[in-house]
């Protein structure tokens, strides 16, 4: 069970940090109420006034973000292969090539279908 002692200590530190922060800010901090503090997602700033109903804003960047994540993960998979490519041999080479080809198809699709155009 000794191996779990650091985990328990970690939990204790985490819990203690949370309690100390909340209690300390309750005791020492100034208490000034305003409308923003009663918002469901309070961040201290009153939100800019908006028209009635949900506001719409373009979320086109999500395509770029998704592409970034895909290639980010590709790198994560390539690094262990590169480190051990001598052990994995020609089979590992073809496996990784297939993996890259699959991602390339997805990239070609997004590119050709205009996923990378901003407007």
């Amino acid at each position, binding site marked *: 069970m000794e191996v779990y002692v650091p985990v328990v200590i970690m939990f204790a530190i985490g819990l203690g940090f949370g309690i100390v922060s909340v209690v300390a800010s309750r005791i020492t901090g100034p208490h000034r109420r305003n409308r923003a503090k009663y918002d469901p997602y309070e961040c201290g700033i009153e939100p800019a006034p908006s028209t009635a109903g949900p506001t719409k804003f373009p979320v086109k960047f999500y395509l770029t973000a998704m592409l970034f994540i895909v290639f980010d993960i590709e790198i994560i998979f390539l690094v262990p292969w590169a480190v051990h490519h001598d052990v994995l041999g020609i*089979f590992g080479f073809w496996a990784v090539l297939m993996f890259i080809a699959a991602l390339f198809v997805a990239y070609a699709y997004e590119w050709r279908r205009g996923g990378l155009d901003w407007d």
Partner: protein
Amino acid sequence: MNEAQGLQIDWAGLAPMIIVFAAAFGGLLVEATVPRARRLPVQVALAVAALAAAFIAVVLNSGKNAAAFAIEGTGLGSVVLDGPGLFLQGTLAILAIVAVLLLAERRTTRGGDFVAEAAVVADSAADRAQQREDGATEIFPLTLFAVGGMMMFVTAGDLLTMFVALEMLSLPLYLLCGLAKRRRLISQEAALKYFLLGAFASAFYVYGMAMLYGFAGTVDLAGINRAGVSSGQPRMFLYLGVAMIAVALLFKAAAVPFHMWTPDVYTGAPTPVTALMAACVKVAAFGGLLRVFNVGLASSAWDWHLILTIIAVATMIGGAIFAVTQRNIKRLLAYSSIANAGYLLVGVIALGDAVGQTMFYLAAYGFTVIAAFAVVSLVRDGDEEATHLARWAGLGKKSPATAVVFTVLMLALAGLPFTSGFTAKFSLFAAALQADELGLVIVGVVSSAILAFPYLKVVVLLWLNEPAPDAPTVNLPSPMAGTVVAAGVAATILLGVAPGPLLDIVDQASVFLNT
């Protein structure tokens, strides 16, 4: 250690999945290169050809009973090609061909039932613009990815491969649910609901897998079965692991109390996608359940028997009673699919005695339900499907052919003799009796009797009521949807009148490797 050198791979055994996945990637390249006007025929041809080739590859594999990967002659559990796995793969390929033809239907709605972007704000300018365009053809690669995942799911011999396959079949389906061209908002709601609850179920699966790994020291199903007898770990790990994995699989199978998503998603998703879910996902989910419980958890049957029995009873009774109160044809079929999940669970609980009959039930139910949803997509109020049951009144007088077809399908779902519904239920319950599950069989028969009521109510509505003056029109199907309906009805009657050949096949294919 050079493990890669000693690795033997049964490429022919993997061929069905490789073909389907390769065709899915090919479909993406078609989207990227072929001009929009020519995409539909190319995509449909590619998808149907790939699924047909996959089916042939499965047939060529028949009789195999080994792992697809082996090191120095010792099989690895990751992909297991055995009787049930191959039979379900073949069933999936055939059902998927039928579903793809339904997806390709373009005569009932001009330009097809699908849009290209699911996440566009409903009724915004961009959304109205994409509704005017011809339907998206990305649905075909997405369907192929999902079907490939299902094929992997029913042959996965360890929990890790099974999880990868589970995600592979789920993610395209979440997206497909949100692509309806009409009633965008409810379609998006369906996609989001399915995604959130499905992601939650997947999390349960991973946690359960960790528990079972803690218990058995392996994720291999056969190894977990051995550990059920010999593991020195606390039994609590096993209970928690089984419970959590069962939550995830029963969610996909739509069993009470994990069924909440089913009616909403079935209603909101485009009808061809609903057909795909009701037929193919059902096959895959129960294929997975059969394998996990028969191969992985048979030795601990006493630990989970009671809880699974309770779930099966709740599913059979709950699905049937809720089906009685439905006024929307798609919701009615959704609750009927829940009740049918209950009957199939009886087959899972009966373990080895009922594997073949459960698979027969899956095949019979799949064909009937695809054809039923195909008919639903033909009956239309102007642009939209007339899903409210009252609108179907007197359809027999206006379009007798459609009404006859739908009557046959309803009678099959109600389980009347000379339809596949009867032979499937009869053989399944007979097998359950052999496994000493008398109580479950009684509940199943009572539930079937309750469930027959809403179906017969629809039949009465079709034939004995007067049509309203503004009754919905029945669109003549194109050869695509026509083939779907014809194939579904033909299989329904054929499996009802002459079930012998298929029952023989499932009998021979009913033994899992490593049980």
